[in-house]
């Protein structure tokens, strides 16, 4: 493993670790907050009882354990996965606007899922993450290939434009399927906005192993992302096999994105927002950016999902709508500030 960052001073290490601990504490608080609120008002003591003295004959306990817990857990892993995926993409492509949604990965995963549901008549979730992953991988490769083959290579602009074009193409195909087939539109229209509701633990169990592989991979590869973020030449100078490492990172990104899409639909902008906020505080060392993105991404999505259920109670707002409403202004801000 090649470490490229400067050695940390003891105090920097201490601060960073402390920050991580604070992040964890915030995460736990958000998690508990998340499972304490919902359409039905429950006493906090009931929530605690449901967690520690579970009685499956009580419906209120079931609400906490069977409905809110899976949703909170899914928000947690999806938030972490998308943020880490975004962080890796931004590092590797040196593109501050990289986000799994903007670069066409999400529409690829969505198309694969729509095709699977419509034409194979797939109703089990077991293979959906894998199928979505293949869709995401294909569209990611396509976006990347197009952008790197363009004169000037994979610049922020070429990546974003090729992502927009490929998303537009895939969107047209999805529209045709929907217009011909009202049933698919009816059953998938909720999922296509990005939503955390209605998932059960079974689906999480199918996706979790993939996500763990992706997250562990990200942590292991993080030091070389720091190098790659400084440029391919400097990374190669540090003895990194650039092509191989980029391929490994791409696989991590795809796995993380695709399992997230399979679980929660195309939730936009999380992968864009969190890594930027993290970088504001942590600088450019990906050994810290990756774990921070994971923890704060998880807390962020938990928080957004709490809002999604509270703002119009007892009605819910689609979580994907809120992530876009919060995320898009940030994108605009970034363009104003970061793009010369």
């Amino acid at each position, binding site marked *: 493993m090649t470490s490229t960052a400067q050695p940390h001073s003891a105090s920097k290490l201490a601060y960073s670790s402390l920050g991580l601990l604070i992040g964890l504490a915030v995460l736990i608080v958000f998690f508990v907050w998340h499972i304490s609120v*919902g359409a039905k008002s429950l006493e906090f003591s009931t929530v605690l009882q449901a967690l520690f003295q579970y009685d499956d004959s009580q419906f209120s306990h*079931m609400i906490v354990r069977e409905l809110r817990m899976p*949703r909170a857990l899914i928000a947690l892993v999806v938030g972490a996965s998308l943020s880490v995926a975004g962080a890796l993409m931004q590092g590797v492509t040196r593109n501050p606007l990289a986000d799994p949604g903007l670069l066409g990965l999400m529409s690829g995963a969505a198309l694969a899922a729509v095709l699977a549901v419509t034409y194979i008549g797939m109703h089990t979730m077991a293979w959906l993450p894998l199928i979505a992953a293949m869709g995401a991988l294909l569209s990611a490769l396509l976006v990347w290939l197009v952008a790197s083959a363009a004169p000037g290579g994979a610049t922020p602009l070429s990546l974003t434009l090729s992502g927009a074009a490929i998303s537009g193409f895939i969107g047209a195909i999805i529209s045709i399927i929907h*217009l011909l087939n*009202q049933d698919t539109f009816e059953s998938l229209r*909720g999922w296509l906005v990005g939503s955390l*509701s*209605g998932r059960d633990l079974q689906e999480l169990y199918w996706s979790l192993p993939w996500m763990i592989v992706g997250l562990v991979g990200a942590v292991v590869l993080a030091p070389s992302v720091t190098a790659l973020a400084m440029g391919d030449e400097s990374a190669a100078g540090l003895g990194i096999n650039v092509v191989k490492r980029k391929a490994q990172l791409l696989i991590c990104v795809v796995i993380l994105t695709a399992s997230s899409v399979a679980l929660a639909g195309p939730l936009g902008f999380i992968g864009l927002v969190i890594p930027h906020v993290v970088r504001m505080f942590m600088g450019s060392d990906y050994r810290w950016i990756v774990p921070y993105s994971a923890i704060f991404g998880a807390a962020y999505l938990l928080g957004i999902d709490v809002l999604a259920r509270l703002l119009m109670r007892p009605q819910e707002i689609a979580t994907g709508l809120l992530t876009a409403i919060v995320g898009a202004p940030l994108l605009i801000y970034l363009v104003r500030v970061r793009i010369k």
Partner: protein
Amino acid sequence: MKSIIALFLTLVTAISLAQTRTVASYQGEIEIPANPQRIVALLDHMIMLPLYELDANVVGSVGRQWEGQEPYIRGVRALYQQNFADLGVEFVGTAFSADIEKITALNPDLIITYNFGSESLEQLEAIAPTYVIDADKYSYMERFELLAEVTNTTDVFNAKKAHYDERVAEIQAWLTNPADISVAMAMPRPDSAEITLYRDYGAFSQVANDIGFSLPAFFAEQIGESASAKISIEDLASIDADYLFDTFEPNRGDTATSTIERYNSMIPNWCEAVEACREGRYIPLRRTDSFSMSFKALDYVLAQFATHIAARHELYFNE
């Protein structure tokens, strides 16, 4: 003599063909043929199906089409196993994007659509008088009756309606007081962890209202003036119907237990939380059969109510 009769019949037909009358449509008063001979239906399960039962003269209808499969008429296929070719009706495109030229080629004398259709009314009216049903203003039975009226099949409608009314009266006679029994339709939405509560669920609600069952208090409060409302699965235990109905759709691969699996996928032991289910009064029905605009659908719902409520209520549940 024969030729005189033939001449007379031709004359009568010609006169009846030439005659028009004015009806109130969504867009205002329109002139339609007194006895339409070539009707085009722009929604399958809510126009083509009732017209088929009324024996109206339909020449074209929209349908649904899955990739590579024969187009089919939603509702007519499920309830009568009939398709375009069987009925001698032309396929004029998919619902919400009909082929305007195909409609013209059929030379219709009346086109019927809903006020939420996406085809251009201006173009339709250029082809033939277009009757637009106001889905927001009329109830299920009112729309059915209007369809009969504009297609000059009120006699058929009245005969079927009379038969239906008799059967409604029959069930009413079997029950001490239908208003004491609350009946409702609710469907699980596992994709969004919600349950849809219905006030107006096509044929089902029509029959329930005609018999005089009441809508449960929680349903009335949640739905308000709309046709339906969604509640979170967290409020499952508030569902207060005496008899709780649900639907499954064999056309989409459902079996009779699919709704139960849907609830199970959201929350195990859900049945314990809902009084109706706990007490054996949760009943899944076939979807198209209990929703469509059709006397066959109304009959189906009547039979379900007779079996599940009228026959069992006095015996098991009436304290």
